[in-house]
């Protein structure tokens, strides 16, 4: 691409962003008198007016419980709830909508597999392969199930850069490995893992593979059929959607043979005093009143992302991350964690002599929201040899200027801590 083409493209991206920002009124708020610079998108994204409007419209026009009512409102609510499921299914390339289960989010989705699949099929001595970069959501449930079932956990070695050491694959992926569970995109390192290749190799030894897509679905086009994994978990609130809802995609035959996780109304077929039989997919895994308006609103978030365009978003992410990366690399005393190239839309870093919590507090006074802490990845912090990091994470509404502001904030923090030295 010529320089001119690049510039034109960059300009197009920019003017699009300015327009998209109009959809997010919260971006106009001020913090400590400064305009909000929201760089904590990996924790939760903001919600566009369109998605909120879909939520409100549903509540004020079609609110009823689903799957139970003969009345019109109940039918409308069910229609919209199921339409949302179809949207979500299409968004991740699920071969059938009945393989998409609405949950509260990634954490519940992974627990569902750990309880419903692993508790049924893991045998003593079996092994589960994880990576040291997992979010606690994709680590602690496996610790519990491994302890309960007498299975073992194995951890994929990492390169110093913070990517999976693929040369370890053949040693690692051997019987009795039954489950491989790993994140698609690391929420700390930004590493994008080669999930497709790992799925192929996991299947070669008969293991099942779960992918934690919490940081992937919001940012990159995901196709579960193409990846070839067995389970895929993600949350709505990181992809312009509401809190309280997320999804688990699973292979139909696996979902079929799994035990239900939570039980109650809706997920049953027949109930006697002493036993019960289960409803068909996906209802078997959706006990009780589901997050109805939230699911509808998640469908609207999918519409919104489709409207923005995942290809556009990827390009936008790439530009922002490159821009930020170059500036952070050029800044004295800044240490960046994770690979330099091919990463997700976030950068973890530390500033020499400034604890990440102090940095976050100082940046907050400038209106800049970054995250500081262990990012629900304490083992990874130990691996990195730090108690915590700062993290800036981007989304479709972020602008290069906001990265400039972040850099200024970092420089100010350095000055404050150098003051009177």
């Amino acid at each position, binding site marked *: 691409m010529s320089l001119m083409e690049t510039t034109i493209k960059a300009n197009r991206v920019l003017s699009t962003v300015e327009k998209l920002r109009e959809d997010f009124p919260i971006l106009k708020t001020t913090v400590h008198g400064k305009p909000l610079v929201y760089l904590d998108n990996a924790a939760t994204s903001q919600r566009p007016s369109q998605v909120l409007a879909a939520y409100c419209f549903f509540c004020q026009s079609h609110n009823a419980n689903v799957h139970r009512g003969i009345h019109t409102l109940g039918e409308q609510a069910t229609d919209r709830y199921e339409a949302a499921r179809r949207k979500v299914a299409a968004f991740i390339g699920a071969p059938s909508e009945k393989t998409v289960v609405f949950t509260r989010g990634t954490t519940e989705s992974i627990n569902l597999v750990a309880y419903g699949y692993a508790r049924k099929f893991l045998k003593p001595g079996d092994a589960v392969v994880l990576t040291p970069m997992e979010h606690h959501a994709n680590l602690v449930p496996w610790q519990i199930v491994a302890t309960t079932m007498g299975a073992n956990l194995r951890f994929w070695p990492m390169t110093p850069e913070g990517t999976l050491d693929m040369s370890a694959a053949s040693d690692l992926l051997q019987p009795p490995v039954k489950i491989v569970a790993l994140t698609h995109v690391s929420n700390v390192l930004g590493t994008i893992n080669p999930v497709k290749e790992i799925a192929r190799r996991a299947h070669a030894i008969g293991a099942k593979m779960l992918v934690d897509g919490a940081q992937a679905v919001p940012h990159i086009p995901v196709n579960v059929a193409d990846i070839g994994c067995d389970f895929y978990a993600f949350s709505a609130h990181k992809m312009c959607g509401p809190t309280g809802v997320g999804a688990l995609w699973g292979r139909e035959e696996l979902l079929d043979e799994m035990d239900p996780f939570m039980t109650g109304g809706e997920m049953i077929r027949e109930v006697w005093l002493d036993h019960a039989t289960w409803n068909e997919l996906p209802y078997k895994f959706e006990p009780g009143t589901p997050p109805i308006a939230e699911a509808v609103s998640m469908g609207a978030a999918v519409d919104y992302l489709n409207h923005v365009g995942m290809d556009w978003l990827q390009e936008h992410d790439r530009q922002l991350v490159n821009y930020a990366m170059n500036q952070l690399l050029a800044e004295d005393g800044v240490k960046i964690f994770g690979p330099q190239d091919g990463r997700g839309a976030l950068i973890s870093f530390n500033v020499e002599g*400034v*604890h*990440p*919590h*102090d940095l976050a507090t100082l940046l907050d006074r400038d209106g800049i929201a970054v995250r500081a*802490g262990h990012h629900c990845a304490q083992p990874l912090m130990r691996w990195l040899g730090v*108690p915590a990091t700062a993290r800036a994470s981007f989304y479709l509404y972020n602008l290069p200027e906001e990265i400039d502001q972040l850099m200024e904030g970092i420089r100010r923090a350095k*000055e404050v801590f150098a*003051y009177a030295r």
Partner: protein
Amino acid sequence: MRDELYGEILLDHYRYPRHFGALPNPSVRIEGKNPLCGDEFLIDLNLEGDVLREIRFSGRGCAISMASASMMTELVTGKSVAEIQKWIDRFRNFLRDGGAHRDEVDMGDLQALAGVAHLPVRVKCALIAWTTLEEGIGQRKNEPR
């Protein structure tokens, strides 16, 4: 560049923490952790009867937790357990109201932490050394671990 929260006194304690280190034969050694922050402190006490003769602390944390720990060690050395408890309570209140309604007592260097009261999420940083010490004086009849 000067910052209202991260002022000279605070930064001085952060950079040159007083009583940093360990005691050879502490009568109490107590660990304080905030795993959610990654803060970790080890506090050694030499108590003679009811009086705290010596204190040392080590560990790592943010500027607020380190400075607060350092200031604390200066304040409590030589005081009785009862007086120390009073200071712990006083400091807690101080962090609650930002020194607005402080009693007549001069907070000394601790005054530098007044701004933390406006940062609820950072209050626990300022308190970690203090709650660890509180646990320590509560355990003073125990052997060092």
